């Protein structure tokens, strides 16, 4: 009975770790697809325009954004060498990283929300290595809950 109990504890622990790692894998797949589609979009736009966009109209990755209401008063102090900044906000704000912005731009084909059209799914599957294709298919309708032991 004791050995069964120990195994049961081990089983629970493994299940939790697998669930956490499935979430980690899902995020990595989203990031890979979103970044590849962003690069594809920009390459096609530059080819179409025949030139790169003006430098002051683009924001290169990596970046983070802070968004807040326009009525927020923000006190900002900056060191001379721009190595240190101090902001004081008097209103609420949100901070997001670049990958979150890419998801909101639709670069992850809606996989982050488990809402991906068949056409987008086809495109997303083509952007990842074979071993990840079954995970992308699963993500099209919800979070990853399986582990595929073979590419199939």
């Amino acid at each position, binding site marked *: 009975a004791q*050995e*069964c109990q120990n*195994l049961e504890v*081990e*089983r629970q622990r*493994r*299940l939790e*770790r*697998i669930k956490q*790692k*499935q979430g*980690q*894998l899902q995020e*990595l*797949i989203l*990031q*890979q697809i979103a*970044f*590849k589609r*962003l*690069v594809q979009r*920009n*390459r096609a736009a530059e080819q179409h325009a025949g030139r790169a*966009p003006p430098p002051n*109209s*683009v*924001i*290169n*990755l*990596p*970046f*983070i*954004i*802070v*968004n*807040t*209401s*326009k009525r*927020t008063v923000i006190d*900002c102090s900056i060191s001379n060498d*721009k*190595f*240190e*900044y*101090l*902001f*004081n*906000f*008097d209103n609420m704000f949100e*901070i997001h990283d*670049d990958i979150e*912005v*890419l998801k909101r*731009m639709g670069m992850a084909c809606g996989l982050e929300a488990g809402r991906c059209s068949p056409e987008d799914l086809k495109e997303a599957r083509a952007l990842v*290595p074979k*071993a*990840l294709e079954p995970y992308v298919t699963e993500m099209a309708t919800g979070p990853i809950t399986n*582990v*595929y*032991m073979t590419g199939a």
Partner: protein
Amino acid sequence: FYQDLQKEVSELTEAEEKLDELITKCNLQLKLLTEDTQNKKLGYVMCQDLRRSFDSPDQLVIVIRAPAETQMQVSEPSEGYQVSLKSTQGPIDVFLCPEN
């Protein structure tokens, strides 16, 4: 019951090892992808992309581009919130995303 448990735990071990292998590969692929020179040049968003990420026009969007390992600390002083940025590897760029 014990043998069933043993079998299940061994399958779970295999599954976890498979996930570890895939995560390692994905991290490597992403690193190679983002470090590729061409991709570095093409890895950008336009200001209007940011604008479109927020549906309400009354949003102020501050963009922060910082060198690796820059520390951001958000603390709750007596009033409002304080956000401090400290870089050790180069200057930090902070600018407002233009309206149009």
